């Protein structure tokens, strides 16, 4: 279930529970004959016990949903700075924007946020998120979009008389479009440099740590290596295998690892894939 759907489900459950108690109350009001003392006691106790149980399950549900929100996954990091009365955004590629926030679809993003003057609060209702921003203290908002399109963002803090002017647009686009957009024009970049940039920005290294201790295998010196797959078969890694591993990681899963790598099929252009490949080839050393 997506985060937005989780929050909505929790809200719905709370609404329905309230309505349930309301219906019970209505029944009690409409009854004309007195209730026998024993049944009365059962009713009163049942009501309170039900309330306790409902609240306990809400407490648990809230905890689970809240805990589910921060993604242990790698994320594209975007800096968001608020000031009276505007939003300044800088993407990892270096591209800046004002009162707009471009996000890649379905890819985890971490917004690193701070304020330059008074406390502000970034709120994106469509994503069911909101976070305060302070001067001199960084806060982070982790999110993953589920839908392409444009959404409102605004400041939910009482930040001053022109608070209502402090709104902007969230633009959710495909990862590939986002990367193209975020790259803007980077004049004279070689494929190798582009590959390195992609590798860093897409946080491949969060899983593929050089020491092999991450969630995925170390990638240094991969080409030419003998790889054992889950089913027990072996193969020698070549360029096609590497490209396939990025496009459809689940097609051939390395033995000893879980199939947790996100698929980049359709997300990266051929030239971006090629750039990544060029960069991977240059990685030296490795434990194996």
């Amino acid at each position, binding site marked *: 279930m997506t985060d937005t759907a*989780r*929050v909505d489900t*929790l*809200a719905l459950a*709370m*609404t329905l*529970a*309230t*309505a349930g*108690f*309301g219906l*019970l*109350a209505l029944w*009690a*009001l409409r*009854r*004309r*004959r*007195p*209730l026998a*003392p024993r049944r*009365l006691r059962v*009713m*009163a106790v049942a*009501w*309170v016990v039900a*309330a*306790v149980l409902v*609240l306990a399950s*809400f*407490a648990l*549900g*809230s*905890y689970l*949903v*809240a805990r589910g*929100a921060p993604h242990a996954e790698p994320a594209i990091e975007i800096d968001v700075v608020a000031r009276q009365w505007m939003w300044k955004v800088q993407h990892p590629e270096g591209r800046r924007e004002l009162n707009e926030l471009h996000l890649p679809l379905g890819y985890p993003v971490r917004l690193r946020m701070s304020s330059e003057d008074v*406390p502000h*609060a970034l*709120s994106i*209702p*469509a994503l*069911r*998120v*909101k*976070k*305060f921003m302070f001067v001199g203290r960084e806060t982070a908002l982790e999110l993953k979009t589920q839908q392409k399109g444009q959404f*409102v963002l*605004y400041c*939910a*803090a009482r930040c001053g*008389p*022109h*608070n*209502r002017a402090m*709104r902007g647009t969230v633009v959710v686009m495909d990862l590939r479009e986002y990367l193209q957009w975020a790259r803007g024009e980077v004049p004279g970049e070689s494929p190798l440099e582009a590959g390195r940039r992609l590798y860093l920005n897409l946080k491949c290294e969060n899983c593929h740590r050089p020491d092999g201790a991450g969630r995925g295998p170390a990638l240094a010196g991969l080409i030419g290596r003998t790889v054992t797959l889950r089913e027990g078969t072996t193969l020698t890694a070549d360029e096609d295998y590497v490209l396939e591993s990025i496009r459809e990681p689940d097609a051939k899963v390395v033995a000893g690892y879980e199939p947790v790598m996100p698929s980049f099929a359709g997300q990266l252009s051929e030239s971006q894939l090629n750039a990544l490949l060029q960069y991977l080839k240059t990685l030296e050393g490795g434990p194996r």
Partner: protein
Amino acid sequence: MSTASYTVRAWLLAADARRIAILYLVAMPLVGLAGFLGAVAVQAGILFPAGDLLEAKSYELLGAWHGCGMVLLVLLPAIPAGLGLAVLESRPAPWLALAGWCLWLVAGAVWLAGLVRGEPDLRRCAILGALSLAFTFLSLMLAVRRRQSCGPFAWSIVLSGTAWLARLATGGLEPAPVAPLALVPALGVVAEVVRDSSGGALYGRRLVPWLLGAIAASTFLPWGSRLLALELGPVLAGSLLLAVLPPAALVAALLATVLRQPPARGPALAFAWTSIGLAMISGGGFLLLASAPTNAHLAATAFESAHLHFMAGVVLAAFLAGVHHWRDVIAGRATPEAATGLAALLLFGAWNFAFFPSFVTGYLGRPWGPGALADSFGRLDTISFLGTIGLVAALAVAARDLLRSLFGHAPEPAARLAASKQCE
């Protein structure tokens, strides 16, 4: 009473608790009407954004002005000053209550003058209003002690008075955080009305003062928009959810009371049920504000505003229940009962029409306050505006009922003049 003079001077400097209560009962609806009209102006701006009745800054100010006056001058004092002084206080010269009334008048003047000048001095208005309420509470608490009054209403006054004095000591008079305390006297009135309509004894009555006390204590928990700046850790989140239990248990006790002995129906009871109904809806909203994931999304939106307004509805309905219930005490003689509970039903419906849409628009992301005028929610805004008009109708019917019974003469002799019960 017979020697009391009826000159203007005697009324304005009334040193008789019942008279002070009546002065509040006349003045508070006027202040409430002014605040209501301010809100309607803001709402009309939302509905017809093209018209741009006022500048953005004026909307901001008007919103803050509405909140300050409505909470500190109407919502909080309505029941302690308007009903408490009439029902619980009986000293010939309640100077504390009189001081409270004078401060309230000054606060109200500051508040209204602020609107006329276009730059409201809300801080001063809040401080004066808060002090006025403190004097009223002190007067009432002393009276309860002296007369050994008993029952949910007397308890609720003592408990909320204590909480209010503690609040003044700790500072902080923002309208939204202080408003929930008004629930305590409101629930006290409701419990007393249910008790008296249903055979004179509450189910689980030994528990009721504890529940009221727990509700008063829980108003000190930080919640809603203040959680934006806080991390809602497991302990705070847990205690916030727990705060729903005492009111839920109180409602259970009231329902059990009427299930044990079906009540004598009347307008007071009808308003009491309206109050409980609105409280349950408000409580549902509170659940969403008290849970971390939904709070992150809903705090400081129109959703929180809807929750607050439902709380205000709880107090208004309880207040009307109390006026019906104690109309003989207020009028000082036997009065007839209003015929129907129609006004209570209308109030419940209109309140939902007027404020429920804000739960939805808040969920869809409208920020709290007039800051979000730019966004229109079309049909929802229209429903809410129609609800506001319905509210006028409901209150008009309620006022007609009340005036009829307060100025009418009962055929039977005054039986319910004994204002408050002694402790057994």
